[in-house]
């Protein structure tokens, strides 16, 4: 159901409210109803119980009176003198007539023979020949006031025999009609269904308004709830049970003193609860109707006061969402929700104004941005033009240098060649002085050639024309070669040179020729700038992927501020000292370019006067 879904998602406050309201109303109903119902129930029960017990007590009193009167008669009889009685037997008749329930009176001697009797109908006691064996006789002789159990005669007359002893050791006995007692019992009435009857301790009904019940020897001992009441010590019992006629009743009991009888008064449960049920229906029905009215009225009121304004607010929000800021929520009352509506409307106004302002600013900014974009576009264009120009210049430069180097190298080679000729004496023996001079020419020429080569190299490298052919290069043999080449240089200056390579050092991925070039360059620089001490060539790992080559010398070192520039072009460290160290000043920049082509890095560690360490890294694998 849609509503239940809404409730679960807490989307509908209205439905939640309604549910809670209804539940609350009905719960209150229930509480009040139960309370009132219970109260009525108790009141009714107490009332009935009171009436019942009153009726029972009154009936018990009747019965007791009845028996007491009887006892009195017997008493009188028992005190009479025997001799007198024998002479005036009519006294018995008088006594008999005093008591309407008595059927017969008799007096006996101790041996069981009868002295006198009087009877209303058939005399039975005077025809007794079993007197000495009779229980009524024996119990009376034993000193008890004896009531026999209920007997039914052949004429369906119920009677009991009451006996007691006399002064002279004899017995007086009387037969009592029990149906008189039935009359007493049937006169007990209360309510419409109330009835009473008498049972003895064995559960046998001895008096009932319906004679058949007694004559049929009806017993209640088969009703288990009732056996308890028959044995109840205080004999004032009250309870709900099913009686011997299988009706649901509420009953009370009162014991009749000096007998083994109990009066039971019963009222049908339907009657006992009649008022309660009626009240329940009326109450229930009334409260139900009232609740319905309350719910309908209450919920309509809340609808109007709360939920309707809320939905109007929501409508307003919808309009704003759709950017219809001109919409204003209708305010009916200036209550809590009304005030929200007013604020809402004010907010709408503000928003409208804000929007208007914003649009202006946006227009401004847009203009500015457009101008900047235009400027940028110009600059980009210029830059591109410049790049093209620069490229053109670079190309021109390279071409020029290549051409010029070639142009320069050709005659220079000739000069060097012929100079060699002269040195070799192929053009005739030269005087010694001339030999020194020719040597000088050769050296300078050589130097010039180196310079040109370096410039060409560098240009090639810079313009990207240098290609390195990388392969896996075994380091140890390479180092040996280099040491061999450098050895000559080193010996001249009296320096020591050593190489340190870890055993089983892996090959590096490099151009062999160029690598040699770099190492030779660094070594020659080391030799150049070291007057004494040693030079070592070390190889180890920079990291897992790169090898590190180090050329360490004990030379003059390089000051920190100069370290910045040494990898630049045409730089020699001590340009100012004028000692004229040979070298083109291009070597380190070429090394830098080459190392970087390999994908490595080059650097220096040095302190003035403490030697220098030049290091570079080469990858171990492609």
């Amino acid at each position, binding site marked *: 159901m849609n*509503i239940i879904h809404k409730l679960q998602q807490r989307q509908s406050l*209205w*439905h939640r409210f*309604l*549910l809670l309201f*209804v539940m609350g109303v*009905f719960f209150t109903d229930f509480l009040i109803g139960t309370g009132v119902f219970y109260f009525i129930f108790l009141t009714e029960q107490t009332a009935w119980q009171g009436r019942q017990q009153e009726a029972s007590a009154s009936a018990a009193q009747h019965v007791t009176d009845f028996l007491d009167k009887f006892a009195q008669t017997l008493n009188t009889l028992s005190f009479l003198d025997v001799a007198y009685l024998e002479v005036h037997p009519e006294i018995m008749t008088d006594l008999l007539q005093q008591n309407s329930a008595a059927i017969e009176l008799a007096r006996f001697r101790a*041996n069981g*023979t009868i002295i006198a009797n009087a009877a209303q109908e058939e005399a*039975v*006691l*005077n*025809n*007794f*020949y*079993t007197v*000495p*064996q*009779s*229980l*009524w006789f*024996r119990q009376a002789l034993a000193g008890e006031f004896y009531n*026999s*159990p209920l*007997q*039914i*005669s*052949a004429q*369906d007359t119920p009677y009991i*025999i009451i006996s007691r002893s006399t002064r002279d050791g004899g017995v007086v006995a009387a037969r009592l009609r029990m149906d008189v007692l039935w009359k007493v019992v049937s006169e007990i009435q209360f309510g419409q269904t109330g009835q009473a009857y008498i049972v003895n301790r064995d559960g046998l009904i001895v008096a009932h308004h319906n004679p058949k019940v007694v*004559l*049929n*020897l*009806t*017993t209640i001992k088969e009703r288990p709830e009732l056996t308890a009441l028959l044995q109840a010590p205080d004999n004032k019992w009250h309870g709900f049970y*099913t009686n011997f*006629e*299988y*009706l*649901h009743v509420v009953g009370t009991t009162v014991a009749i003193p000096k007998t083994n009888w109990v009066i039971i008064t019963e009222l*049908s*449960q*339907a009657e006992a*609860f009649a008022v309660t*049920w009626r009240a*329940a*229906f009326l109450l*229930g*029905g009334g409260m*139900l109707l009232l609740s*319905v009215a309350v*719910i*309908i009225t209450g*919920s*309509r009121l809340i*609808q109007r006061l709360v*939920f309707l304004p809320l939905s109007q607010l929501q409508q307003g929000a919808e309009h704003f969402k759709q950017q219809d800021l001109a919409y204003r929520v209708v305010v009916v009352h200036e209550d809590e929700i009304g005030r929200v509506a007013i604020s809402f409307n004010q907010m709408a106004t503000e928003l409208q104004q804000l929007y208007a302002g914003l649009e202006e600013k946006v227009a401004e900014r847009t203009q500015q941005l457009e101008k900047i974009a235009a400027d940028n576009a110009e600059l980009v264009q210029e830059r591109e033009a410049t790049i093209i120009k620069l490229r053109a210049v670079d190309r021109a430069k390279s071409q020029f240098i290549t051409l010029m180097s070639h142009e320069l190298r050709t005659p220079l080679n000739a000069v060097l060649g012929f100079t060699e000729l002269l040195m070799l004496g192929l053009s005739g023996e030269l005087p010694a002085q001339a030999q020194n001079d020719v040597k000088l020419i050769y050296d300078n020429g050589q130097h010039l050639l180196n310079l040109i080569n370096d410039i060409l190299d560098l240009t090639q490298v810079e313009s990207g024309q240098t290609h390195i052919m990388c392969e896996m290069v075994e380091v140890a043999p390479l180092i040996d070669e280099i040491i061999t080449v450098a050895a000559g240089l080193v010996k001249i200056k009296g320096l020591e040179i050593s190489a340190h390579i870890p055993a089983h050092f892996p090959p590096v991925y490099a151009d062999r020729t160029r690598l040699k070039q770099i190492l030779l360059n660094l070594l020659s620089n080391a030799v150049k700038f070291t007057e004494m001490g040693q030079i070592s060539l070390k190889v180890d790992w920079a990291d897992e992927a790169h090898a590190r080559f180090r050329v360490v010398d004990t030379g003059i070192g390089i000051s920190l501020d100069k370290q910045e520039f040494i990898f630049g072009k045409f730089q020699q460290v001590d340009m100012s000292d004028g000692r004229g160290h040979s070298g083109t000043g291009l070597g380190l920049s070429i090394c830098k370019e080459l190392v970087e082509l390999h994908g490595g890095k080059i650097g220096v560690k040095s302190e003035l006067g403490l030697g220098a360490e030049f290091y570079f890294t080469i990858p171990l694998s492609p």
Partner: protein
Amino acid sequence: MQTRILVLVTKFMLIGFMFVGIMSLVACQSAVATPPPATPTPSLPQELTFYAWPGYLPDKVMADFKAEYGVGIKYETYGSEDEVVAAVHAGKVVDVMVVDYRYVAQLIAEGALAEIDYRNVPNYKNISANFRNLAHDPENKYTVPYHWGITGLVYRSDLIPEPTSWAILADPKYKGKVGIWDIPASGIGIALKAVGYSINSESLTETQVAGDLLLKIKQNSVIINAAEATSAKQLASGEIVLAVGWSADIIEGRTLSKEIKFVIPQEGTLLWGDNLVIQANSPHQYAAELLLDFLMRPEINAQLVNGNGYATANEAARPFVDPELLNDPVLFPDTQKLYNVELLLLPRNVAVLKLRAEIWQQYLDTLSAAQ
């Protein structure tokens, strides 16, 4: 919105009314009585066993019972009361028994008798008040009085004068001509009565005195053959002139000789009686109760009187009894004559019982010796 409210409210109202409706149904329930549990009437057996003196139930009575209820009666007999008690002790199972008053107290105490549900025996109301609620069985829980009779003297009125006292039995004049039955209770009882004591005396001394008289009587007496139903024949023949007797004797005697008469001595007589009882072990208690009720019907009960010649405790049967029997003073004695009558029971004192047994044994021994 409004429709929704109405829908919800209507739903709740429906629930509410349903609730109220259910409650009212529940309320109605409590007024209606629960039907009584169906107790099925016990099924009736093929036959019931009736254990008594011979001839207690006329054939017609048994046939009528079978015709009405479909239950046959198997008649079993005993020759003496001791036999009944012995049989019960031995574990014999019967349904209905006839038991003399003397043995009732003992059997009740032993739990051998079943409590009778008088709702099934409504005809019990026909029993005379005389026999109800007697001390040995208060409220007649176990016994329904059956026959009763008085013990007296039967005599040849032409041969001896009318006896007035039990002591005549010891009168040497009639030596050898006095008939006594081998019924210790009546013999000892008569002796006790003759010496002025209760026939159910619990006293050893009293019993001993009676015993002495009995020995005197024995000089005179002969034991009447138990096979004989009555002493009538022997009286008629003159073999004996005097005997302890009951109504059956006089009824038969009268047919044999007008001279045979019956008298109750002045000391008073013994009232004997028997009862219908249901054995506790009987598997057919309900059917047995039906039989008891049947036998208490006035017209049926009268048939027993007419057939057996014994008085009945059933007052209502009187109109149906043969007028001849009804008027018979022996059978239905005038109660004025029953002055000093005593119901024949038994003493409970074990020592006394033992003494009685000894006395009677002595008596029998002496008798046989004499003969």
